[in-house]
């Protein structure tokens, strides 16, 4: 018992004070990308050619954060004219808004107002893991650890779709998981929300082009919230959930 108390004392209070206080991340973290207006065509073409995800639109000088895996290869080739900032608040309500030169609409203002009313005080979510690499699941799971403590906002992950207000999907939806995913969606009572987490779910991510997957959850279900990243940082998830529903 004494050692339990001693440990408890050593551990202290670790929950962050977000959103009142921003949480700082290490400087090499790659969040929202910014392409400078005056980037030369040649540089951008080099970047686009080196991008493993073909996520850069040279014509419109934009990066598709739904395809991007935030590897930073383009940043290294851009002579400082593409920067991945430390800003992790990058989720959007529309797929098209993920295609950006650096500006994003404020998520809280684009959230559907009736969702805030319905789910603002309590939101129960069912997670469906549909292929992918399991890192997205891992960084959703940590929201339950003391540092993030998602429960303090009245948001929880539940075991049954019958108890849920919506589903959170990760992975590129393999052929072998498609039915299970659709059944889980059907089993969730309306009104319900659909949240796409990670580049895999939004576009197919690293697996784009494989005949075994679905390139974009929005092709098969109506998606309300897009959370980009590979995987999205837990703070990105936290910001998205709070801004969209609170």
């Amino acid at each position, binding site marked *: 018992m004494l*050692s*339990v108390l*001693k*440990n*408890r004392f*050593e*551990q202290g209070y670790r929950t962050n004070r977000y959103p009142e206080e921003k949480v700082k*991340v*290490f400087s*090499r*973290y*790659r969040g929202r990308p910014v392409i400078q207006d005056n980037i030369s065509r040649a540089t951008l073409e080099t970047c686009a050619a*080196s*991008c*493993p*995800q073909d996520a850069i639109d040279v014509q419109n000088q934009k990066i598709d954060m739904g395809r991007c*895996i*935030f*590897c*930073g*290869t383009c940043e*290294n080739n851009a002579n400082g004219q593409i920067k*991945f900032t430390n800003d992790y608040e990058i989720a959007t309500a529309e797929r098209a808004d993920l295609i950006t030169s650096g500006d994003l609409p404020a998520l809280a203002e684009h959230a559907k107002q009736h969702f805030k009313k319905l789910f603002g005080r309590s939101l129960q979510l069912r*997670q469906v*893991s*549909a*292929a*992918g*690499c*399991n*890192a997205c*699941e*891992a*960084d*959703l799971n940590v929201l*339950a*650890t*003391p*540092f993030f403590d998602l429960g303090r906002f009245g948001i929880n*992950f539940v*075991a049954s779709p019958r108890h849920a207000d919506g589903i959170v999907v990760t*992975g*590129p939806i*393999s*052929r*072998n*998981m498609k*039915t*299970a995913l659709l059944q889980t969606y059907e089993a969730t009572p309306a009104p319900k929300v659909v949240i796409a987490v990670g580049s895999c779910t939004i576009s197919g*991510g*690293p*697996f784009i*082009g*494989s005949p*075994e*997957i679905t390139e974009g959850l929005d092709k098969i279900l109506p998606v309300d919230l897009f959370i980009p990243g*590979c*995987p999205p*940082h*837990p703070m990105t998830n936290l910001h998205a959930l709070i801004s969209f529903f609170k």
Partner: protein
Amino acid sequence: MSNAFLQISNAQKVSRKDIPHLPFDQFQSQALELVGNGGKIVHYFAYPDKGSLKLLAVLRTDKLFVAGCDVPDPYPSFTKTCEPFHLFEREMAEQYGIRPQDHPWLKMVRYHPNYTDGAADVFGNDYSQDIPGNYKYYQVEGEEIHEVAVGPVHAGVIEPGHFRFNCIGERVLHLEIQLGYQHRGIEKQLLTVPAKRLPILGENIAGDTTIGHSLCMAQNLEALTGVQPDQGAGVIRTIALELERLANHIGDLGALSGDVAFLPPANYFGRIRGDFLNLSLLICGNRFGKGLVRPGGVRFSLSNDIRKVLNERLAELRPEVTHVLDLLFNAVTVRARFEGCGAVSHEDADHLGLVGPAGRASGMVYDVRRCFPTEHYPHMGIPENKKTTGDVYARARVRYDEILQSLQMVESLAAIPVETQCVNEGIANDLPASSFSVALNEAWRGEVSHAVLTDEKGKILRYKIKDPSFHNWNGLAMSLRDTGISDFPLNNKSFNLSYCGFDL
């Protein structure tokens, strides 16, 4: 030992014409002899070459061996005399439609159509039907027998898979595990993507083993192209692999603690695991180490400012880790639940070819870092961590030892300045024609390995990936034999295997 197999080294280019291509009978007798005498299978797979199918086996004793042969018709199963081949033969049947004659339990592995255009499906499956199609699960018969079916969608934030328990009362007689839900077709996709996408697919095979898989891919491509990463890159890769081990082992002990309802360590380790993930982010900007390893080196340096923060954090974490370890392992209630639970005997572990901490818990000493070291490991003493009891306690205790060892390794490597010439996109060189390379590493779950074959134009002809989970899922099934079904979660967490790594 006189053997027709060719002895090779880890992550070394071999010309395909030097790989013995044996008459099938000789291939069979030599492979069975090697494995029958305690050797283990690293790879055994089929590949198409100039219109016909061939087989290739990579086996290990204290050395590595390779040989191949043509596929005979009919192909007689090795499994009936030598169990370790059973899953490899099932995989071969699924991937290339090769039916192993007299295989004792021929069932699909991942549920997908085979890779050969037009070859008949060995299992008679219609893949427009949902997994697992027309497969009838193994059934135990008897009046008081009942079945419990769980999944594919589980109750938590975890990957999908189906578990079928045959029980008498609370006692599990048999657990059958059906996976394949996570199948993305990576081995096939690797043959079609441009070179710039190879490392991306490699690092996303299993996100919790990003570094382990990335290293296998990078080492193979480096071996094939003759590119030698500098010493600093080797140090940074070694640090990254050990940080991956630390984060996962610590997370596992937290989860085990939670499953026996001892919540303080569950919460502390849950958070401390995150602190170690953040150290990967400190180095490369991603909590899972994605974007760090590329063929030719690493993309991020360990500059002195980063190294300083790393050392400070490690100094803060060390006492916390050791104190929580003590808290967990000194609790008699925890020991009472861990000890004797889900024991896998050394003999079973040996037949199944268990690897990593699960293998070491059952007395299998094998550790790639010691037996076939790559990167900076030849310069580091890796102790033997084996235990003998094979139960949940042993699997937890191996992690206890390895957490302290890895922590010490990272501390010692990070204590001195590291210099490296960073790469960005990785190797642009073409691959050499008609070559082969196999790379093995000790990821946190055990031996992870990739093998590559190129054709006469230097295109990748076959890319074979093996996650340690491929060896270990049957260990979990075995641990449940004659155990209370309520002990499933505890045993499951003590193995903590990868679904996507198995399903590829």
